[in-house]
């Protein structure tokens, strides 16, 4: 190693690079690979079965492909609208404006509607 031609730092770096080439490679054992992959499987399984995983899957069912905040935001908005309507619309008005109308039928009178028999 011809360190005389280099400034100190560079010469040291070159010399060190040569030294490190002497070190044997560190082998990755199959056991370590198996342990690392097993930890991946454990984390994936935990994520799938945990509360967060269940919520994610529910969101995916309701709104496939959307990020989790979208179904959550729609649910929150619909809840807010419902609560606001329930709080601010007066009960009488809500009942009066309803579509439910009492039907009055005189049982002894002839029906005054035509079902097409006379046409």
């Amino acid at each position: 190693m011809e360190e005389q031609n280099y400034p100190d730092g560079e010469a040291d770096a070159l010399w060190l690079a040569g030294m490190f080439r002497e070190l044997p490679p560190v082998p990755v054992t199959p056991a370590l690979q198996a342990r690392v992959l097993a930890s991946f499987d454990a984390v994936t399984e935990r994520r799938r079965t945990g509360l967060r995983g269940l919520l994610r899957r529910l969101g995916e069912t309701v709104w496939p492909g959307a990020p989790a905040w979208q179904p959550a935001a729609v649910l929150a908005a619909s809840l807010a609208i419902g609560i606001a309507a329930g709080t601010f619309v007066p009960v009488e008005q809500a009942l009066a404006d309803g579509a439910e109308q009492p039907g009055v039928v005189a049982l002894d009178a002839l029906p005054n509607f035509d079902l097409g028999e006379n046409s």
Partner: protein
Amino acid sequence: MIDPDTDLVARAGQGDRTAAQALMARHLPKMLTLARRMLGDAAEAEDAVQETFLKLWTHASRWQPGKAKFETWLYRVTMNKCYDRLRRRSTAKLDEAAEVADPALPADRVLENAGVAAEIEKALADLPERQRAAILLCHHQECGNIEAAEILGISVEALESLLARGRRTLRARLGHLKNE
């Protein structure tokens, strides 16, 4: 520059085992080498690397590309796991610590002990841990100075200072090997 690992990390975060295997094949050897040289012990290095990957799997689904290069983050986690272990060692009794640092003890190092490699490893192990980390990242793992500084959480100037002192110490210690 596009991080080549971004896609693999995202897929691993979604539970894709093939992506996890690809990440492992790409990074495990380098992380293991770094941990092994930092800790000087094969079993501890494997444990540190396994913990690093466990952290990766746990955080993969929340990985945000663009914040940091994935490999830099992985090196930083590995390094922190090594520091944790070194700190635990330093709190143990001095004679026990000496036994752990003795390169002659682990069975898988029997072949290394006789040669130059054992001497280099011993010299590395005797360096202060920050100098050792800087030397390993820049000269063994071939990280650039900026990346190595980011991994260690220090300025580039501080890294260069660590490198200079580490090189000087190693050269003084191993200088006789150059003629062998």
